[in-house]
């Protein structure tokens, strides 16, 4: 009995010690600069958004938050860097659908279960777009044309989110699509307005002015719900197709990162994202506050996107 009590006492002491240590840790975190690893070169939406997020998050913390470009391998260079860092919350990685596709192909040292979502900064659904003077007035007309002939469809690199989205849509609608890859969204937007291609999957952030001017006509949104900016444009889901793809940009840490540190990061990011400065940025690129999601929602979305993507890629024979 005495022994037990002693042991109990000792246990309590240890527990208190651990607890106080961890609260001390939480209070100390972050004491060093925090890195956001980005998988692209400077410039471009992912890098620009990350720099914006670093700026607004830094204003919430005592530490610096900086962006480091770790380019290569469809995100695998950034992912292997993250996997080599301690799970201490000081290394944050920007995640886009590209990372998930790289993981699916087995080209990454990390799996979806090794990462933990912190917050999501943008959510930009892909819109089925044709030229304003196109013969395709409705989604059905486009689908019909694609069933009888071939639709030339523009997007970014093969195996990226635009390609998977286009192929999923073609598969669901039973159309034939001839996919033309370009280096950037602005390039295939220009190709669409020249008439080099028939249709493209574009984001509102790239095309808001052209839609307003009637140069482009949105036919459908690849999302579960209609977009507030385009209330009259139906979703593919409404048309009986379970095709939902979006250019999402969010941030993750390693799964083993202590909960309290994750919480500190999440709170700082979320208050940063809610700031006027970030909201203005979002509006400037044609998005709104619905882009922002907390750790739980973003982590769930990551898993859902991963599963849906894996299914599509297997069905389309894109898995290597």
């Amino acid at each position, binding site marked *: 009995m005495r022994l037990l009590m002693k042991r109990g006492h000792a246990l309590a002491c240890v527990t208190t010690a651990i607890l106080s240590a961890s609260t001390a840790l939480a209070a100390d975190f972050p004491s060093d600069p925090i890195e956001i690893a980005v998988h692209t070169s*400077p*410039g471009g939406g992912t890098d620009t958004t990350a*720099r914006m997020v670093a700026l607004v998050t830094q204003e919430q913390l005592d530490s610096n938050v900086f962006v480091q470009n770790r380019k290569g391998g469809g995100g695998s260079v950034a992912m292997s860097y993250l996997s080599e860092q301690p799970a201490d919350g000081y290394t944050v990685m920007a995640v886009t659908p590209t990372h998930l596709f790289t993981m699916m192909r087995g080209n990454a040292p990390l799996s979806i279960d090794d990462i933990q979502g912190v917050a999501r900064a943008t959510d930009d659904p892909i819109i089925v777009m044709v030229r304003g003077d196109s013969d395709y007035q409705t989604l059905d007309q486009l689908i019909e044309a694609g069933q009888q002939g071939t639709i030339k469809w523009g997007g970014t690199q093969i195996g990226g989110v635009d390609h998977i989205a286009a192929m999923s849509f073609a598969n669901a609608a039973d159309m034939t699509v001839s996919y*033309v890859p370009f280096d950037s969204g602005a390039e295939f937007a220009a190709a669409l307005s020249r008439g080099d291609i028939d249709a493209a999957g574009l984001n509102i952030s790239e095309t808001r002015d052209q839609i307003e001017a009637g140069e482009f006509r949105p036919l459908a949104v690849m999302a579960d719900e209609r977009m507030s900016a385009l209330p009259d444009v139906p979703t593919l889901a409404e048309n009986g197709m379970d095709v939902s793809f979006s250019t999402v940009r969010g941030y993750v840490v390693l799964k083993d990162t202590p909960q309290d540190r994750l919480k500190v990061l999440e709170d700082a990011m979320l208050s940063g994202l809610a700031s006027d400065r970030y909201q203005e940025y979002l509006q*400037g690129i044609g998005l709104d506050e619905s882009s922002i999601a907390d750790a739980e929602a973003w982590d769930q979305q990551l898993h859902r996107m991963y599963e849906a993507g894996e299914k599509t890629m297997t069905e389309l024979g894109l898995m290597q």
Partner: protein
Amino acid sequence: MEPILTGLGILTDPVAIAVILLGTVVGVLVGALPGLSSSMAVALLLPFTIYLDPIPAISMLAALYCAGTFGGSITAILINAPGAPPAAATAFDGFPMAQKGEAGRALGMAAVSSVIGGILSLVVMVLAAPALARIAHSFGPPEYFALAIFGLSMLASISGKSPVKNLIGGALGLLIATVGVDLTTGVERFTFGVPQLYEGISFIPILIGLFAVAELLSQADVVDRAMDRIALKAIKLPSRDDFKRVWKTILRSSGIGTFIGILPAEGSTMAAMIGYNEARRWSKHGDKFGTGEIEGIAGPEAANNAATGGSMVPTLALGIPGSATAAVILGGLQIHGIRPGSYLFENQPELLYSIFAAMLVANLVFLVFGLVGARLFSRISLIPRTFLWPTVFALCVVGAYGVNQSLVDVTIMLITGFIGFWLKRYGFGAAPIIMGVVLGSLVENSLAQSLIIFDQDASRFLERPIALGFFLLAFLSIFAKPISNGLKGLKRRRAVNGGHS
């Protein structure tokens, strides 16, 4: 007119002038150092511009970009290490001049021709930006393919070395450009499982290897002759006669640069190459190019700075960046809530004119910087080789590493350095290799894209007038000389026959 005046109003704002000056000075410095690129400098400055108004902020970045393109020529001339890709062509004749003890003349010429090229292109922009934006917009994959073919048509003649060796060098460049994931098939080529090669080999390590490291290895072969450094003519600036000799070259290159610059995608590097080649073609001393001809500096420098101004047009009007730095400036626009696109010119014309005003100031500032600096920097060429080249090597390693913070790039730099040294020994020039690397992915991707657009029917290239025009230029660039020689021969024979009858 009113938007022009509103735009120029930026020149009366002391804060704007101060940040433009800051951008210019930073630009020249990072442009000159091989690993510090102006795209990185712009990315680092981006968060700070948030505290400025949009117009001074973007003006600062544009001034930095402009000055960075000029800065690259300083190290290209002095140590054969182009600080940025557009300066590669400047090294062809610039470095030989520095070795002959004419560094000051070369640097001065680079500064003056850059400024003239830059200002002329800005004048064209102010007068015709919306029209030029329409031209840029009409360039699709077929037009790019034709443009790239025109570029490749110069391969055989671009350096004074033998045409066969030039073609072999060009093929090597094209081969290097195939590394990475193919855009239209998604297949990995020559990546050997190295993820850093997935997006292709970066241009900067190749440039540093081929120029600076190869030169360093050659220099290691040469005994340092202290007597080489006798003359203080190294700090002499170009003379009036020099300018008389090059003004036509400068004008021609400014035109080339302005036009090529408005086309998105590595415009200024290609403009500099074409500017160099045309300078050579029209020069009386064309055969001496590569040994230190002053037109060989004026040609690429006027062209690349003209292209820098030009590349702001597709960046602003189409949202398609004309270069890596323009891509970051594009991000800067978005941070300030400015949406690039064809509607920008209609909705916010004053922004356009402010940017041009800022670039004008940047040009004037780096003219002063360049001319005063030329006397100072040219002394670098007086440093004994035993001290200079080890320092250059350290700079090369840092530079190659700095691009992507990757040791793979350092390895690439070392390998291309040895290859470059070896090729040089056997009489191959760097120019065709660089040309091949620059054009490789453009020619391949645009052909693949065009064929999908044309339903695999190559004859439909004939439906595109701009493409046809470039094919015609390519044809002329290859066959003009044989044809004119043939005609001359015919005339001579006729004259001889006429004399007899």
